[in-house]
């Protein structure tokens, strides 16, 4: 009869310790232990030796086959226990004795590093009546074995525990050291458990928030600090658990009630199994920074507003100025026009006086009338030039591609009289490229320059005027050069201003010619300038956009 003993746990981790062997040796129950697949006896206790009528010397080191050459009925069970590690109980009836006795072999494995080492066998010989007791004993034995194993296990655990405690002490020392370092930080550093209870509160936190460590520890951090979250706490928790990190801004309340902006960095601490155990929070007071940033933002906004306002103002002023400038030019134009009417009368009547009443007038009277006539004529010329100038600045300008040769030809044919009167020589040398210009304005400009070249001559020197064109990168430069008076560098800029005359009285004119030249060139998008040495003539130049073949046609410039 073989019984499986299921109540006894496996002894996987048990090895054969000395104390255990001693326990077996002194057990009152007959017990022996066999090793290996051949079941060689390792140990047989005194009780067993007595029962089996063997001495330890006889039995130790022998196989069961050596000890009992006759067949052993329970060897199959023994093999199983050795092989499977499952304890079994085998009972044999010895029928030839009176009363009948039962041999009960209780077998349990001995393991070393999960490998079967051998089997412990306890032998009990009982009568039928004793069966019950034997079973109880069996249970007791197995229980004691179990007990022993448990003791072994607990001893081991104790050792582990001691080691762990020692380790923890070291760790605590290290932590204390770290905490001391953390205390040096001016940042507030706080450790929370998973329920947000404060478990660590460094000196930075004490100084910043105003609560001492003992006051803070165990409190719910968000209650103590009356935290205002910038995003829902669920989101923060979710992100923290997902990434182990969270950084953001929160508003906390100090012990004195002051609200402060905090840059909070959270790190989630997990144990070996990955279970969250604590949250480390490091916090920096960014109230000043936030304030500064807000002020900066505010300042930037205000600056942008101011810039916008200024820009608007400039645009408005420019528009106003342009409008008022146009208005002024229109007023100048109409004034010049209107002033000519009474002037005509003054001149007309003064002339009539000279012509018709000259006999009735004294010499002085005639002179006065003559001067009135001359002044009125000069004023008329001024007004006429002013009209020409304002017309140049106000008229509609349309640039077209023009042949310079044709324009210069027109200018010279219109000035034939002046050229002849001045006994002048005008040289025109090509080639003549095409330019982009407004024809009437360009004719006016070149006429004025040529007229000046013919007018401001040195006494006794026949005027020599040279007109030529010079092709430049994107423009055409037209030169009007003379051998006349020349212009001192001091005056080379101011001669382009309206009614500026350098030799008042000696040469006729109002001083509007070059102003009209400059205005006309400006309206056509060109440039004008002069190179001159007094006594050696002047070289006036104008620059106009070069005509691009593809660009033939009208282009508006207003």
């Amino acid at each position, binding site marked *: 009869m073989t019984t499986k003993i299921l109540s006894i746990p496996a002894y996987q981790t048990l090895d054969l310790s000395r104390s255990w062997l001693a326990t077996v040796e002194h057990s009152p129950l007959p017990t022996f232990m066999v090793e290996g697949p051949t079941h060689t006896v390792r140990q047989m206790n005194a009780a067993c030796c007595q029962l089996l009528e063997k001495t330890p010397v006889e039995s130790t080191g022998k196989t069961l086959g050596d000890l009992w050459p006759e067949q052993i009925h329970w060897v199959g069970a023994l093999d199983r226990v050795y092989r499977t590690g499952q304890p079994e109980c085998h009972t044999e009836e010895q029928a030839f004795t009176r009363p009948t006795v039962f041999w009960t072999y209780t077998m349990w494995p001995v393991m070393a590093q999960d490998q079967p080492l051998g089997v412990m066998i306890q032998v009990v010989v009982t009568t039928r009546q004793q069966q019950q007791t034997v079973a109880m004993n069996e249970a007791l034995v197995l229980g004691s074995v179990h007990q022993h194993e448990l003791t072994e296990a607990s001893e081991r655990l104790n050792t582990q525990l001691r080691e762990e405690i020692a380790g923890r002490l070291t760790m605590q020392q290290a932590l204390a050291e770290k905490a001391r370092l953390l205390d040096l930080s001016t940042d507030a550093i706080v450790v929370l458990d998973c329920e947000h209870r404060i478990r660590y509160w460094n000196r930075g936190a004490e100084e910043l928030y105003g609560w001492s460590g003992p006051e803070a520890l165990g409190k719910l951090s968000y209650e103590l600090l009356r935290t205002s979250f910038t995003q829902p706490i669920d989101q923060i928790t979710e992100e923290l658990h997902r990434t182990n990190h969270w950084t953001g801004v929160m508003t906390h309340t100090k012990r004195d009630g002051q609200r402060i902006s905090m840059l909070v960095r959270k790190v989630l601490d997990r144990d070996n199994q990955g279970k969250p155990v604590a949250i480390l929070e490091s916090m920096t007071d960014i109230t000043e920074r936030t304030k500064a940033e807000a002020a900066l933002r505010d300042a930037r906004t205000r600056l942008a507003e101011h810039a916008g306002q200024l820009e608007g103002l400039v645009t408005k002023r420019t528009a106003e100025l342009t409008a008022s400038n146009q208005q002024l030019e229109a007023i100048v134009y109409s004034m010049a026009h209107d002033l000519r*009417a009474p002037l005509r009368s003054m001149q*007309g009547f003064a002339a*009539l006086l000279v012509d018709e009443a000259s006999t009735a007038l004294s010499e002085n009277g005639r002179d006065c009338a003559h001067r009135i006539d001359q002044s009125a004529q000069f004023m008329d010329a001024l007004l006429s030039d002013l009209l020409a100038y304002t017309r140049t600045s106000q008229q509609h300008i349309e640039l077209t591609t023009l042949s310079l040769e044709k324009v210069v030809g027109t200018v010279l044919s219109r000035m034939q009289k002046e050229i002849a009167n001045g006994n002048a020589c005008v040289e025109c040398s090509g080639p003549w490229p095409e330019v982009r210009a407004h024809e009437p304005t360009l004719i006016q400009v070149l006429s004025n320059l040529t007229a000046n070249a013919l007018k401001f001559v040195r006494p006794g020197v026949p005027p020599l005027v040279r007109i030529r064109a010079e092709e430049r990168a994107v423009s055409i430069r037209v030169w009007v050069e003379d051998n006349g008076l020349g212009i001192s560098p001091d005056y080379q800029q101011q001669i382009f201003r309206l009614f500026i005359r350098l030799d008042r009285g000696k040469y006729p004119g109002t001083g509007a010619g070059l102003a009209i030249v400059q205005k006309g060139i400006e309206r056509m998008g060109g440039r004008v300038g002069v190179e001159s040495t007094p006594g050696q003539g002047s070289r006036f130049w104008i620059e106009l956009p070069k005509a691009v073949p593809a660009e033939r046609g009208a282009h508006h410039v207003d």
Partner: protein
Amino acid sequence: MLIEDPIVLLVDDSEDDALLVRRVFERVGFAAPLRIVGDGEEVIAYLNGAGAFGDRAKFPLPTVVLLDLNLPRKNGFAVLAWIRQQPEHKRLCVYILSASSQADDIQQAYDLGANSYLVKPGTLDELAAMTQCLLAWLRLGHFYVPEDNPSITTA
């Protein structure tokens, strides 16, 4: 058919200008046919023979109107437009005589049917030269002459 000296109707609000024109006409010996009115309404009344202008012996219909543009009450353009709308005056010879040499004014005058456009000269000498020229031209040309003009006689 002999055409006598043409009748010139000067429309100018400036008494000075009108006087100077009269003097110049006198100087070239041609004062008699010059009639002068001072504003737009007056020239219309003259042409219509309204009121005192009904006396055609004294206020004959003109051969040519010298019309200023800048006139009180009704400006030169309006007068010109009115003339061209009247069946009996639409062929009347109208010369603009203005101080303005602006292209806009010149263009508008011709658009409304001006026969010529003269810019008032700046000096008396130039005015005299222009007047002589004008009279020579008027003597040479054939102009529309209304039927009832007493200054036209047949030979």
